[in-house]
C-alpha cells in the first residue's frame, strides 16, 4: 500500500532518522531498507529520498561523508548527529501520541480487535 504524499512528508524523515540511528547507511541502502522493512509502505525513489536527505543535512540532523567502500568505489554515507538523535526522540514521542490518539478514535484498531 502506498501512503498519501502529505502523510509521507511527515513520516519519511522520522523513518530515515530511525534507520540511521542503528548505524550509518548510504542512499541505495536506505531505499532498500525503507522498502523491505515497511513492506513497501514507505518505499521511496531517489527523487524523494535524496531531497529528504539533503533537507535533514541542511537542518544538521544527519551528516554525509564521502568514503571509499569495500568495493573500492566512492559512496556517501549518512549518519545521525547529536541534534538528529534529539529530533528522533521528539519525533518518536509525537508519533506515539498520534497513534494512541488514532487508536482512541478507532482510526487505528486496538490489538486483538477487529478492524
Amino acid at each position: 500500500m502506498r501512503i498519501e504524499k502529505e502523510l509521507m512528508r511527515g513520516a519519511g524523515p522520522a523513518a530515515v532518522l530511525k534507520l540511521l540511528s542503528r548505524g550509518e547507511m548510504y542512499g541505495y541502502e536506505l531505499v532498500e531498507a525503507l522498502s523491505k522493512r515497511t513492506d513497501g509502505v514507505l518505499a521511496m525513489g531517489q527523487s524523494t529520498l535524496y531531497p529528504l536527505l539533503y533537507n535533514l543535512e541542511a537542518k544538521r540532523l544527519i551528516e554525509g561523508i564521502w568514503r571509499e567502500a569495500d568495493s573500492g568505489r566512492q559512496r556517501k554515507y549518512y549518519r545521525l548527529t547529536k541534534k538528529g538523535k534529539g529530533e528522533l526522540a521528539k519525533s518518536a514521542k509525537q508519533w506515539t501520541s498520534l497513534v494512541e490518539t488514532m487508536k482512541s478514535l478507532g482510526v487505528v484498531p486496538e490489538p486483538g480487535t477487529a478492524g
Partner: protein
Amino acid sequence: MSAQALPPPTNPSDSLYHKLRYTPLRDLLRGRLTETLDLVRLRAETELPAPLAEIVVQTVRKTRLWRSERLDVANELIAHFRDGLASGATAEHLLSTFGNLDASAKLIRRAKKRRRSLLWRSGIKTMQILAGVFAIVVAIYLVLVAYLYSGSVKVKRNFASELNARVLAIPEEQRAWPLYRKAYLALGSWPTGVQGRERPGGPDWHQYVEFAKENGQSLRLYREAAGRPHLGALLFDPDDYTAELKRSDYAPPGTPLEPPDNPRLIGATFNELSFLRDGARLVAIDAMAAVDARDGSTVVQDVKTILQMAEHMAERGAVISALFSSLVVRRAQSVIAYALTTAPDSLTESEWQCVAHLLSRVFGGGPFPLPDASESRSISDVIQRVFTDDGQGDGHIAPSAASWMLDATHFGALERPASPYRSVQVLLPVVSAVHVRRQAFEKIYKDILNRGIQESRTPLWLITEYKVPIEVDAYRSGHWNQLRFGLGAWLFPTLARAGILQQWRTQQRDATLVAIALNLYRKKHGTYPSDLTELVPKFLPSVPPDRYDGKPIKYKLVSGKPLLYSVGADRKDDGGRLPEGSDHGKANRQAYEWWPANDVEVGLREKKIGDGDWILWPPVEE
C-alpha cells in the same frame, strides 16, 4: 597545403578556458586542472548505462545549482545507480523507481540551497526584499504618473485679452502710454561718472541740469503724457517689442517680437514702472532747477506732472505698481522739500496752495495705494494653467506645473536649466498626488489674499502683529507643507511689508503737507503757530495722525524752526530726539523700522529699532 596536412580540429574541452572553467577553486590553488566540474566529462566517464547517465545529467542540470553542488549531487546519484546495478537491479527497474525528474530537481535545489551559508542566504533575502520594495515603489510611482496624466488643463480665460479690452475701450487720445513710450525712447543716456546725488549743490549738479535741457523733447512728451487721464498701457503690446526698444536694452534677450495668443498674465512686463521712474527723475531735475531759478509756475507744473505719473503707475493695481508709484510721489516731495527749505518764497501763496492741493489729492487723498482683490487675476491665470479641470471647478496639479515651479525657482531666468527641469518632472507625479487640489488651493489663496489686504490696510497703531505672514511662513516651511503647498509657497502673497512701506510714505506725505501749511501760515502771520490745530481749517483740513500712536502728528519749534515727528517704532515720545548715532539717516530709519508692539523691548535691546523719534520735518537725508 593539402587537407591531410591540416592539424586535427581543436576539441573545446581541450581549451585552457574550458579547463579553468570546470576546475574547482581548491584544485586550481593546488595547481591542478582537474575539470571535475564538467558534467559532460563525468557522464562519459561514469560507466553507467546511457539512460541512467542521462537521467543523472538531466536531473543535475535542472537543479540550476552551483557547479560544486551539482557535482556532489551527480556523484551521489551515480553512486546510487552503481549500487543498484551491483545489487542485481536492472537499469530499467532503477529508471522506473527514480520518480519524477523535474520534481526531484526542484526538491534537490530547494534542499541544497538551505545548506548555503547564512551570509549568502541573508544577502539573497535582502535583495529579494529590496527588489520587492523597489517593485512596490515603481508600481506606486506608475499609479501616480497615471494620476498626473489623468484629466487635462483647460485654459478657458484669456486674462490678458480681458484686461486689454478695458484699455481698448479708452479713447486713444486719452491714453498716455504711447506718449510715455516716445518720451522714453527720446531720452538720452543718463550722465555717467558723476559725483554726488542729483541735488542742487552737488558737485556735478550742473551736468544733470544740462542733461534735462538736452532732453527737452523727452520732457515735453512726459508732461503731455502725464496730462492724459489714463495710462492706457496694453499688456503684451506688439509695439513694445519693436527693434527700437530692443536696442535700448529695454526688452530682455529672447523676448518674442510678437506676443503669444493667450500669454501667461504673470509674465507681463511692467514697462511703465521703468519708463515713468526715469521720466519722474528727469522732471524732478527740471523742477529743482526751476526752484533755483525762482520759477514757481514751472515747479508747480513739474510737481503736477510727477504726481500724475505716480497715479498712472498705480493704475494696474499690483503690489509692485503701488510701491513704485509711491516712490515717485516721494520724488515730488523731495522737490517740495527743496523749495521749502531753500527758497520758500520762490512760489507764490497760490502756487503753494496749488502744490498742497495736488499732493493732498494724489491717490484720492487717502493712504497710499495697496493692491486689491484684482491682484488675484494673475494667480487665477496660473491656476487655470497649472491644475487640471474636471469641469466641476476642481482638479489636480498637471504636468505643466513642472515648468511653473521651475520658473518660481529661477524667477526671471529666461533660459531654463535642463537638469533641475528634469528632476522637477521626475518628482511631479508625487507632488501631484500630495499637493492640495484646485478648489482647496483657490480657497486658501483667496482667504490669505483678502485677509492680507485687510491687514495691510489696518493703521500701524492698531496692529500689534501681522498674522497673515506668519501663516504664509507656515505654509512654506517643513517638507510636508512644501509638498502640499509647493505652488502656494511662492503664490501666496505677503502684503504686510508693502502695507508698512505705504504707511510710512503716507506719513511722509502728510508731514510734507503740514510743512507747506506751516509755510503758508508763516507767510500770512510772519511766525509759525504754537500748535498745529491753528492751521486747521484755513491751511490744513485736519491735523494728520501719527501712524505709530494714532494721535496727532507731533510738532514743536526748535530755534524758531518747525520740527515734525512721530513717536516711531518705540511708540514713545522722546520730544523729537533722533536715536543716537552719527549717521542721522540710519538713526532715523531705525526710529521708524516697524516691530510688533509686543516685541519693542526686544527690538530696542537688540538695537533693531532706535530709541528716539522719527523726524519727519525738516527732511533727514537717508
